[in-house]
């Protein structure tokens, strides 16, 4: 759809002193769909349209009714009990009309804030023809776990195909109202792999709650209620969240613009970020990674796992990534 492509190019922020994101937007095409409803268009969804919505290659606002917002009208009524139906219908619509327009398919709520550049960067090392699904991994209800709906999750093209095929063949059914659990079950049934979206330091990129839930320092304590479902050992305080965060949820209108200001505008002049993206990591860091168990995970170094698509990275980086692979499942190497 060349229309959406030209729209995206004109909206890329090129402020003074800034180089636009290396053209990941054409190499890593993301279609975003936002789960919304008529009641929320003015109070919530318009703020997404004004901020991150335009950074998607294509953005679709999915509602029960079509409108000039513009929204796509799904053949579903509103209400919590209908959420999984909405999800199913939304993905079916996307599969029918947009399968070839994107490589990755993100679902977000109308109170989720997303940093598209960081999503594309994380996805850039992965192959959309593989059955993969990324997000904030939760543990209960399903053996392999599932990805939090509010924090947003992203399906590869192959994962989308399998989801739709699952319903077409009756292998997946509407067996729950909880959309994220339901989708997670179908992913498991259709043998879609769970990805690990954490950065190289083990910090989360997708967040089901706002930043103030995670960042303030806490004395060591048992998991608060909002961290109960976590698959990976949660970290409270500054180590919670990656510098290259991808999403935050339960973000109201004021917070949406505040996060936009923090991410894309407010900055310290001349500051050299502490967390640097380097293609060559120091020997000390490599040694540390090989020796220590990070956050109770067991690091498996499997020499058979190749470092596919690391064209420009050096071997040392490859070693780190292999360390972070758990049980052969792919990780999110934001390096």
């Amino acid at each position, binding site marked *: 759809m060349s229309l959406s492509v030209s729209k995206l190019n004109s909206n890329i*922020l090129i*402020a*003074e*002193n*800034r*180089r*636009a*994101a*290396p053209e*990941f937007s054409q190499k890593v095409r993301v279609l975003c769909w936002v789960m919304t409803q008529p009641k929320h268009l003015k109070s919530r969804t318009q703020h997404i349209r*004004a*901020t991150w919505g335009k950074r998607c290659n294509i953005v679709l606002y999915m509602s029960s009714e079509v409108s000039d917002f513009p929204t796509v009208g799904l053949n579903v009524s509103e209400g919590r009990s209908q959420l999984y139906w909405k999800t199913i219908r939304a993905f079916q619509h996307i599969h029918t009309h947009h399968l070839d327009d994107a490589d990755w398919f993100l679902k977000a709520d109308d109170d989720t804030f997303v*940093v*598209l*550049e*960081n999503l*594309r*960067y994380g996805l850039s090392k992965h192959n959309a023809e593989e059955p993969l699904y990324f997000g904030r991994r939760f543990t209960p209800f399903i053996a392999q776990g599932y990805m939090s709906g509010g924090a947003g999750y992203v399906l590869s093209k192959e994962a989308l195909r399998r989801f739709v095929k699952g319903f077409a063949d009756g292998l997946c059914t509407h067996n729950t109202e909880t959309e994220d659990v339901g989708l997670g079950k179908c992913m498991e049934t259709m043998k879609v792999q769970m990805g690990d979206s954490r950065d190289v330091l083990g910090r989360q990129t997708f967040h089901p709650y706002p*930043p*103030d839930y995670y*960042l*303030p*320092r806490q004395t060591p304590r048992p998991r608060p209620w909002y961290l109960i479902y976590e698959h990976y050992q949660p970290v409270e*305080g*500054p*180590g919670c*969240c990656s*510098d*290259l*965060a991808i999403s935050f949820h339960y973000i109201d*209108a*004021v*917070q949406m*613009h*505040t*996060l*936009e*200001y*923090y*991410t*894309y*505008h*407010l*900055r*310290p*002049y*001349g*500051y*050299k*970020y*502490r*967390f640097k*993206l380097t293609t060559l990591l120091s020997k000390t860091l490599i040694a540390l990674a090989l020796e220590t168990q990070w956050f109770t995970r067991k690091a498996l170094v499997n020499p058979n796992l190749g470092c596919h698509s690391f064209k420009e990275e050096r071997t040392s980086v490859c070693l780190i990534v292999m360390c972070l692979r758990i049980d052969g499942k792919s990780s999110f190497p934001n390096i």
Partner: protein
Amino acid sequence: MMSEGSSFMKGMVLGGIFCLVMSFFENFNSGTHSEVHEHLHHHLKPLSKDELEKLSESQMSDLPLQVRVYCLIMVTPKLLVHWATANDTWSKHCDKSVFYTSESSKALEAVDLQEQDEWARLRKAIKHAYENAGDLRWFFVARPTTFAIIENLKYLVLDKDPSQPFYIGHTEKSGELDYVEYDSGIVLSYEAMRRLIEMFKDEDRCPERGHALWKTSEEKQLATCLKYSGVFAENGEDAQGKGLFNKKSVSSLISDSMGQNPADVVEACCSDMAITFAGMSPSQMQVLMYGVYRLRPYGHDFHDSLTFLPPKDSDND
């Protein structure tokens, strides 16, 4: 009855005229200075990109060494959580940060001024800072309820000579007096500090304990003492004229902008190079720290002319 009434009226009129004359004289003394300076200063902006590019290599490498900031953070035990937050976050980006307290707290270190009066405390802190400045030439005074981005402060004063008097922040007017608001932080050059401390000796024009029946706020007393020493308040702004010193929280400013500029909320709200915000809770300040120093989109590179490195013993930055 009538004659008593008219005497009363005469008395009132005479008293009124007397008051007006006295206030006229008061203004007259400082009036001559302000005429000359107001046109030259008042709005202070950072160097433009073009001007920065024109600087020579040696000038560029010297600048970060010259622009070094001593932070005076005025705390009280009542503000303990904000005190701890400032200690943990932005104050680590000052070249030297000293906490000055009204009374000591077991939890956190500070210079205990043992002084309950806010103006007297500020005077003592200023004297202490000046004496302990070493080779630091810029001073930033704030309460821990303020959040400051020191790199942006340095960017603002980069080309300003600290041996000249500078008194910068968010300026307000009170009658004839232009003063810098305390909540959004006060910047003073070395020369301004020196003149101020000299003026502290003048008990008539710059008393330590106010003689008036009412108490003037410290920010206004400070402005008055500075004005008598020929130092005038200047409003810190970016190239577009947006204020860099904010006495409101980020969400408050964003919220205002949503009301006034719904089509362009963030652009219209606040400067990219903002220096201060105030009125934020400690956890909002932790989020702001992350938002300023960490959260960013991959691929947006800046070609700034200067480099500031992350400080030691700090995180969330």
